[in-house]
Each structure stands twice: as structure tokens, then as C-alpha cells.
């Protein structure tokens, strides 16, 4: 695929030069100069920045040789580097703390407590409120967590009962691999639909668990049997 692009570049280059000659002999000097400048610019760009001729797939393969920490500066090099790096996923976290809250004040308190509990050097802390789920925060998180691994996944959900949001949040866990899971559902509302969607996502991501801690401190008016079934279908620790 690289050479297809490279040959394309050369063909384009040859085409521009042929065009330049044609215009020169037909006495269109302005056109010939423009064509020649464009041709030289193409050559100049590939010589000055050789990595630009590598397609994204090959660039991603280079980045995959680096650890999560080594990949951190890539996002600040250029938009292309950032997009390629984000597209890879496959990050390694010590601890991922995700909190979903309706109350802003509680959200901030949770952020601080999670920072104290986890090691911020190894962890990733993401606390959000419901109104953010339709913004670019979730697609970004999805990319960041795809095919990633963590020792501990710590999920706190409070007061969320919207099924649309539940499925968006649950999709975050579809491809993350973890050994220890700690999940806490809290609130005065019925969160059974959310719980069901969450456990289904966790079940499908084929993790091998060391430990699971489940804290359920909320209503569960419907789907109780289905919810229990979904929980029991999680892989054994």
C-alpha cells in the first residue's frame, strides 16, 4: 500500500513534468512554470519529511512498538500523529476509574477520592455527567480505551437511568481487558436497565477476572431475574 502511494507520487510527478514540457512547447510559459513549481513542491515535500510518505497503517505499526507512556508525546507532534495514535488504542493502564454522576458536586468529590485511591501515574480517571454523553467526550474515550488493558477497572454509576445513555456508557467497556472489576451502582432510581446493559458488555469482552466487587445500592424494580442472570453469566473469578 505504501508503494502504491509512492508510485502514485512518482506518476503524479512525471505527469506534472510532461504537462510542463507540453505547455512550454505550446508557448504557454506561465502554465509551464506553474506546473514545474507544483512538481518540485511534491518532490520537496517527500524529501523534506520522509515520514509523510508512510501510510497511516505503517505509522500505526511503528507506534505499536512503543509503550503507553512513550506514546504520550505523539499526540502533540501533529494532527496526523495524534489521529494515528488514538486509532491504535491498545493502551496499558494500571487503573481505570470511570464515574458517571448526575450531581456536579458529587462528581468533583468522586474525582478527588478516586485520585487518592488510585495511582494517578498509572491510572486514567474519567468522571463525567450525563449531559456529556452526546458530545465528543465519549468517542474520544472509546478510542482511548479500545483494546486497552488495565489491572483494575473501577466504575461508579450514580443516578443514571436513561437507557440511551446506559448503552453509550456500556459501549466503553466492550473492548477493554481487565483483571479486577469494582463496580458500584448507587441512586434512588431504578437502574436495572443500566446494570443489564453494563453486564452484557462486560460478559462479551472475554476477560479473565481475578476479583469482582459489586456494590448495588439502588432500586431494581424490573428485569431483576434477567439482571441476576446477566451477572451470573460473567466469567468465574
Amino acid at each position, binding site marked *: 500500500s505504501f508503494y502504491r502511494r509512492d508510485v502514485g507520487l512518482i506518476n503524479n510527478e512525471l505527469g506534472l513534468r510532461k504537462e510542463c514540457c507540453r505547455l512550454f512547447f505550446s508557448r504557454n510559459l506561465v502554465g509551464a512554470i506553474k506546473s514545474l513549481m507544483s512538481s518540485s513542491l511534491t518532490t520537496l515535500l517527500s524529501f523534506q519529511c520522509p515520514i509523510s510518505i*508512510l501510510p497511516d497503517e505503517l505509522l500505526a505499526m511503528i507506534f*505499536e512498538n512503543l509503550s503507553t*507512556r512513550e506514546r*504520550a*508525546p*505523539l499526540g*502533540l507532534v501533529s494532527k496526523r500523529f495524534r489521529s494515528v495514535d488514538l486509532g491504535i488504542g491498545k493502551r496499558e493502564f494500571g487503573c481505570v476509574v470511570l464515574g458517571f454522576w448526575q450531581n456536579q458536586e458529587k462528581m468533583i468529590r468522586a474525582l478527588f477520592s478516586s485520585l487518592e485511591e488510585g495511582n494517578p501515574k498509572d491510572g486514567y480517571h474519567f468522571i463525567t455527567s450525563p449531559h456529556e454523553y452526546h458530545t465528543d467526550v465519549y468517542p474520544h474515550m472509546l478510542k482511548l480505551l479500545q483494546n486497552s488493558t488495565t489491572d483494575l477497572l473501577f466504575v461508579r454509576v450514580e443516578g443514571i437511568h436513561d437507557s440511551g445513555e446506559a448503552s453509550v456508557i456500556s459501549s466503553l467497556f466492550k473492548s477493554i481487558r481487565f483483571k479486577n472489576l469494582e463496580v458500584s451502582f448507587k441512586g434512588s432510581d431504578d437502574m436495572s436497565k443500566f446494570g443489564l446493559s453494563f453486564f452484557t458488555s462486560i460478559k462479551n469482552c472475554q476477560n479473565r477476572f481475578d476479583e469482582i466487587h459489586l456494590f448495588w445500592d439502588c432500586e431494581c424494580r424490573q428485569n431483576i431475574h434477567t439482571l441476576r442472570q446477566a451477572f451470573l453469566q460473567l466469567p468465574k473469578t
Partner: protein
Amino acid sequence: PNVKLVTSDNEEFVVDFRIAKMSVTVSRLMEAMNMSETDDASLLSNSIPLPNVTKAVMARVIEWCEKHKNDEPKEEKENDKRGRTTHVVSDWDKEFLKNDEFGRLCQLMGAANYLEIKGLFNDISQTIANMIHGKKSDEIAEMFNIHCDLTEAEKKEIRKKTAWCED
């Protein structure tokens, strides 16, 4: 037995059958053209066109293949504690790739990808990754001569998001 390989600039390289077989692409083409090790006539009468590889790059590829033609097929080891595959570049390969300027390294990587020579591809990929290792974003941009097209506001936002893994 020897195999004839023809590059994009019409240069013919005559290489040992074992070397030709190191490339999955060449191997497939030989199979498609009914060229076999035991059939000398088929090898003499046919040549493999490689329109995506230039003479200069092909010479380097063959040099690498000559050195590695007797290597045992090796499995990539999962050295990383989290299962990430890591590739160790041998001293000979380090020396071999050391003198290539970065532009040539990129061309060589493209050729290894096109010819499907996994060992060479992994060596170059790891070599470029080693060049990035331990460098800050501005040092990486300078090394690869990349113009940063991110605004200050975007950089600030990214720094905030990646603060957890910065020293």
C-alpha cells in the same frame, strides 16, 4: 536454482531460490507462474516483476536476505508483562540499518511491507520506534522534520488529557 527479479527501473537481480522464497509476495507470484525449485526451465524462462521496488532499495533488501537466509523461523515473544509483542533487533541488523538515512529507511520499510518480509519489516519498524523512544513531542517533530499543525489551545487540551502519564 536462481530466480530473476525485475525492479521498477528495469534492473534484473538474480537471486537464490531460498532468498526469493523469503518474500511472501514473490513466493505467491512464483506459485501463480508455476515456477518451482525442481523445474529449472520455468525459473530460466520467467522473471518476477516488482514494479513497486527500485534498484537501490532492492539491493538493500537482498543484502538483508542474504544474511538471514539460514535463520530459523522465529516466533515473536510476548516479553511484555501485558502481552505486548516486542521485537529485538540484532546487532548485525542495527549495524545494517544504522547507515541508512531516514528517507531510505522509510522506503525500505515500504518495500519490506510490499514484499512481505516480516523480519526486515519488524527490524525497521522497531528501529524507527527506538528513535522515538524517550523523546519529547518537539524533539520528535524536529527529528522527522514535521510541522506541527496543532493550535496552542489544542495542545493545552491534549496535555490536560495526557497529564496522567507525564513525568
